[in-house]
C-alpha cells in the first residue's frame, strides 16, 4: 500500500518535471512578459516588441541550427566564428552588390559546416572537438580577411537592417520563416526522422541502414548556413562588419536557448518551438535587467539559474 502511494507520487513528480521541461519555457516567457507589463514603462508598445524581436533574431536563427546539431547528439561550437566569417566575407564582397555578397557569406558558412561535418562523420572526431577546432580557425580566418571593424554603406543592407513590411521588420520575418522551415523539416520529412533516429542511437541507425554520414554532414552544413545568415542579419542591423566582437559567446547563448527550450543534450529529440521560446526568454531576461538598470552581472547569474533549472528538469526525466 505505502509502496504503491510512493510510486504514484514519484510518477506525479516525473509528470510535473516532464511538463516543466516541455512547457516551462513558455511559462517563463509568459511570466517575464507579465512582470514587464506591470513594471516596465512603455513595455506594451509596438516599437518595444519590434526591438526585442529584432535583437533576438540572430540568436534565434543560430539556435535553430544548434537544435539540429544537439538533436543529432552533437553540438556546434563554431557558430559564433561562422558569424564573424560571414560578416567579413560580406564586407569583402559588397563591391559586387548585396546579393552576391550575401551568397558568398552563406557559402562560407556552409563550407565551415562541411568541414565540421566531415571531421565528425568520416573521421569520427567528437563534435565538441571538431567544432571547437573550427571555432578557433573560423575566427582567425575572419580576422585575416577583415582585421578591423568596417562600415557597411550599401543601401540594400541598410534596408534589410531597418526596413519592415506591415510594421514587421524584415529581420524578424526572415527569422520566423527559417524557424517554420526548420520545424517542418524536423517533423515532416524523412531527413528529420533520420536525424532524430541518429541522435537517439547512432549505432542503431547505422545498422538500420540509414545514411548516417550524409545526414550528419547536412546537419552541420545547415547549422553553418544558418549561422552565416545570422551574421548577415547582425551586420545589416549594425550597418558595420565587426569580426572582432560579432558572435562572441554566441554558441553559449544558442546552446542555452536550445536546452532551456526542452531539447535534451542527449539527442534524439528536437523542439523548435521551445528553442524559439528559449531564445525569447533569454532576450526578455536581458532586456528586463537592462531596462531596470540592474548590474550586468545579474543577467549572467539569472541566465545560469534558468540553465540549471532546465537541465535539472531534463535530467530527472532521463532517469525515469
Amino acid at each position, binding site marked *: 500500500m505505502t509502496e504503491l502511494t510512493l510510486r504514484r507520487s514519484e510518477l506525479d513528480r516525473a509528470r510535473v518535471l516532464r511538463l516543466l521541461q516541455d512547457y516551462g519555457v513558455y511559462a517563463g516567457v509568459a511570466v517575464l512578459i507579465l512582470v514587464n507589463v506591470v513594471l516596465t514603462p512603455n513595455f506594451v508598445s509596438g516599437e518595444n516588441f519590434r526591438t526585442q524581436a529584432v535583437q533576438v533574431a540572430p540568436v534565434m536563427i543560430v539556435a535553430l541550427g544548434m537544435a539540429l546539431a544537439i538533436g543529432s547528439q552533437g553540438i556546434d561550437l563554431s557558430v559564433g566564428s561562422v558569424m564573424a566569417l560571414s560578416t567579413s566575407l560580406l564586407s*569583402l564582397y559588397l563591391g559586387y552588390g548585396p546579393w552576391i555578397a550575401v551568397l558568398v557569406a552563406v557559402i562560407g558558412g556552409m563550407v565551415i559546416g562541411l568541414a565540421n561535418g*566531415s571531421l565528425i562523420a568520416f573521421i569520427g572526431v567528437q563534435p565538441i572537438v571538431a567544432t571547437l577546432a573550427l571555432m578557433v580557425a573560423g575566427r582567425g580566418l575572419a580576422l585575416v580577411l577583415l582585421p578591423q571593424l568596417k562600415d557597411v554603406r550599401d543601401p540594400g543592407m541598410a534596408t534589410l537592417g531597418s526596413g519592415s513590411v506591415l510594421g514587421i521588420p524584415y529581420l524578424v520575418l526572415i527569422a520566423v520563416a527559417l524557424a517554420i522551415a526548420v520545424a517542418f523539416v524536423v517533423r515532416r520529412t524523412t531527413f528529420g526522422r533520420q536525424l532524430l533516429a541518429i541522435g537517439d542511437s547512432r549505432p542503431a541507425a547505422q545498422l538500420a541502414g540509414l545514411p548516417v554520414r550524409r545526414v550528419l554532414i547536412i546537419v552541420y552544413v545547415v547549422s553553418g548556413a544558418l549561422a552565416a545568415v545570422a551574421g548577415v542579419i547582425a551586420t545589416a542591423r549594425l550597418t558595420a562588419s565587426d569580426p572582432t*566582437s560579432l558572435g562572441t559567446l554566441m554558441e553559449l547563448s544558442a546552446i542555452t536557448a536550445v536546452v532551456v527550450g526542452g531539447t535534451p543534450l542527449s539527442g534524439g529529440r528536437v523542439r523548435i518551438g521551445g528553442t524559439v521560446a528559449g531564445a525569447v526568454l533569454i532576450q526578455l531576461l536581458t532586456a528586463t535587467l537592462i531596462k531596470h538598470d540592474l548590474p550586468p552581472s545579474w543577467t549572467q547569474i539569472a541566465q545560469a539559474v534558468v540553465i540549471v533549472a532546465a537541465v535539472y528538469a531534463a535530467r530527472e526525466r532521463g532517469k525515469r
Partner: protein
Amino acid sequence: MKSTAQLGRTAVRTLVATGLSLSLALTAGACAKSEDDGGSKDKDKGASGDGGQVVSSPSAGNAKTCTIDQFGAEKLDLKNATVGFSQSEKEANPFRIAETASIKAEAKKRGVKLLTANAQSQFSKQISDVQDLIAKGADLLVIAPLNSDGWGPVLRAASAKKIPIVTIDRKINSKACKDYVSFIGSDFVEQGKRAADQMIEATGGKGEVAILLGAPGNNVTTERTKGFKDRIKAKAPDLKVVFEQTGEFSREKGQSVTEQLIQSNSKISGIYAENDEMGLGAVTALKSAGKKAGDVKIVTVDGTRNAVQGIVDGWIHGVVESNPRFGPLAFQTLDTFTKGEKVAQDIVIQDSAYTEKNAESDLSKAY
C-alpha cells in the same frame, strides 16, 4: 571493420573538404571587392606628424624623475640598441592599430631595430612575449600592459639584466625607476571629467543622462566612470545619471543597450559612451528609433575618425581624445634616459578634444 580501401576513401573525402575550406580562404582574399570607402583612411594611420602626443604633466621641478644611474643600468646609444615592443591586444581596433603603427614608424624614423610581439589579450602570453623579447636580445622594452598587476616575474628577469622598461597607456603596479623607468599615458579620470564638462555644456546641466560603460573589471572603465560622475556631482547636481549598463566597448552592444534604454526611458537627454565604438552604436540605435541628430547629446572618449565625423554630421556632440600615438614620446624618453639625462617617472600626455568648433578642421588628426 572498415577495409583499408574504405579508410583511404574516407581520408580523401575529408582532405577534399578541408581543402575546400582552405581554397575558400585563399580565393576569398584574391577576388574580393569591397565597398569603396571614399578615402584611403587606412593608410598613414598613426604616422607621426600631426596628432603626435604632447606632454602635459611634468612641469619640471617637483615631479619624480629617474636617471640611468639611479636605475643602475649602463648608458647606451639608442641608435645601436634593440628595442622590444610588447602590445597587449590584437591590432583590431583603431586605438591599437594607431598605437602599434606609431611605435613602428618612430623606430623606423630613428633607425632603431625593433622587435614586436602581440599578446592577443592573454596576459600569460604577454608575460612570455616579454621574456621572449628579452631572450632575443632586446636592450630596452616598451610595454603596453594588458593588466596592471602580475608583472613580478618578468620585471625581476628584466631588472636582473638591467633592461629599462617604459610602459605606455596603462601603468604597472610596481616601483618606478626600480622595476621600470617611466609610464607614459593618458589620465583616464581626467578624460571622464572632460567628458562630463562637455555633457554639462550640451545639456545645460539639467536632465537625465545615461552611461555606456566599458568592459567590466577594466581600469579604463572604472576611471572614466569615476571622473565623469565626480565632475557631474560637483558641477551639475541637477544632471542625474539614471542608467549605467555595459556596452563592453563594442559597437553592437552599445547599439542593443541604447535601444533598450530609449524605449523604457524617453526622457534621456544625454548619453556618455566610454569609447567611440559604443557611441557610434548608440547613434545607430537613435537613427533607427527615428530620432533626429542632436535630440540626444552623445559624448564619447577616444577620437577615432568615425566618431569625429559623427560630430561633423551632428549626431555626436563631443569627443574627448585619448591619444594612441605613443611612438615619438616613448622613443624620446628612451633616448633621453639612455643618454644619462633624467626623465619623469609619470609622463601624462595632453589629450585634446573635438567639438563642433574644430571637428571639421581637425578631422585629419583623428585616428
